[in-house]
């Protein structure tokens, strides 16, 4: 599909330590005419550089990162852009993470059907 003039694609940052999963999400999101992955990170440190330099509408975060928890990014994200949508996408949500995840806009299971994930990214991006 070609990008229509005047319509802006939803800009997404994806933070995920698993490279396979990162690549897969990139293919998935970029295959959508209205979504574009503008930044990817495998660690918290990497993600923070993107937060400082890039602009995006939606952040898709994994929780378990090699250098910390994806939740620790939420404050930085909101400071940089109060309107940013935050989607937690995690394989297993333990009790402590779930409670802290209350700050996110949405929490989804990595096992959720992909069209649901796409739907959620759209909803947050267009909000």
């Amino acid at each position, binding site marked *: 599909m070609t990008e229509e003039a005047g319509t802006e694609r939803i800009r997404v940052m994806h933070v995920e330590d698993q490279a396979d*999963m990162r690549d897969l999400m990139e293919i*998935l999101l970029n295959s959508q005419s209205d979504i574009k992955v503008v930044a990817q990170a495998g660690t918290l440190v990497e993600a923070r550089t993107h937060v400082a330099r890039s602009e995006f509408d939606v952040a898709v975060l994994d929780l378990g990162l090699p250098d910390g928890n994806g939740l620790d990014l939420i404050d930085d994200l909101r400071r940089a852009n109060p309107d940013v949508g935050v989607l937690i996408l995690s394989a297993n949500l333990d*009790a402590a993470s779930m409670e802290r995840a209350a700050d996110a806009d949405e929490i989804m299971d990595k096992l959720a059907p992909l069209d649901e994930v796409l739907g959620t990214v759209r909803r947050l991006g267009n909000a």
Partner: protein
Amino acid sequence: MLRTGEPEMMTEIPEELVDQAARDEEHRELLRKLDLRSFMIVPLVTRGRTLGAISFVSAESGRRYGEADLRLAEGLAHRAAIAVDNARLYEEAQSEIAERRRAQEELQDSRDQLEAVLQGVADGITAQDSGGQIIYANETAARLVGFPSARDLVEAALEEVMARFELLDEEGRPFPVDSLPGRRALAGEEGAEEVLRFRILTTGEERWTIVKAMPIFTEQGTVRMAVNIFRDITESKREEESLRRVTEAERKRIARDLHDGVLQDLSYTAAAIGLIILQADDAGLKEQLQAAVDAVRRGAQGLREVVDDLRIEDEEGQPFTEIVESVVRRNRTMARGIEISLEVGEQVSSAPLGETGTQVSRIIQEALTNARRHSRADKVSVSLAMDGDDLLVEVSDDGHGFGPETTPGVGLGSMRERAVLIGAELEIESEAERGTSVRLRVPLSRRALQ
């Protein structure tokens, strides 16, 4: 005469009598030479018994006994009898004293032997009188409760003994003094037994013991005393504890490996197949791939449950009400369209409930998951209350419920299993269009937990 006990006297002994008394010719010649003239015999009588007799015989003096002599002889015999009797009584008293001393020594010996046996056994032994005061203790018992010697323990006042240590149950909760086996034995209970932890306050040392107590009754059937036997199980408890730590570390490692490795791979696999489905045009192929995705999801779900169970023990030391609050908060995060309320009754203690607390929170979690996924409810209420020693838990929703014709959610079977595990009663009430209530009655009294 000895038979009658009466005195006899013969003033003049006739010669014929001497002849008759002689056994033979030689004897007669001897008796005649003695020239026996007069004769008296008086009995030795005391306290109505004849002990013997004294014979008086006069010979060459030619004296003849008269009544006055007889009275004198009787007086003499009376005194002699008393003297003889006293001598005998004295002798009897002496032998009785000796006998008693011997019996006492024997008793002391057997006491010493018993003491040696009681001191030698590995178990602590104490005896309490009906007022609870310790009247006997062996050295092991003294050591178990933090006294330097058995004598110190016996001589200490009961309050002083009790002030030495903190009494805890197996899980480390305070143990009520009135439930001590010794107290119960004094109240007449037979076979009272508890596993207790004594935390000695001065040293901070903790000792685990199995305490058994038995009452000893008087002939009238009242309790005379209680005997306590303390078996120190500290070493085996410590071994259990370190084994538990090793097992826990192992469980955590397995949980982490499954979570970080297998679960991530399964998530990726499901997403990767999902992506192919989105890109594929062939309806038949899509269908086949969807079946594969579903299977991977089921596997991942099962694995999550395993990981959750492996992590259960982390929660056991947490205050119970905090665990429930955190479950409710978590579900509020996950189910934004549903209002979840939590009400905790005043009587509900926040103390950790160990495995019971974990299982109860899991049941609440499953009830909330069902409400979220299947009920289409707007409101869910969670309430905790006490009814005597029982904890009452209720999770109710205003959703569409499941009538008898509907298949209950997957969590129901597992809720039942968990309830059985902690001896709780589970009641699930669901009516189409009337919502669902999950009610749980959990016995919390110490006795019920055993």
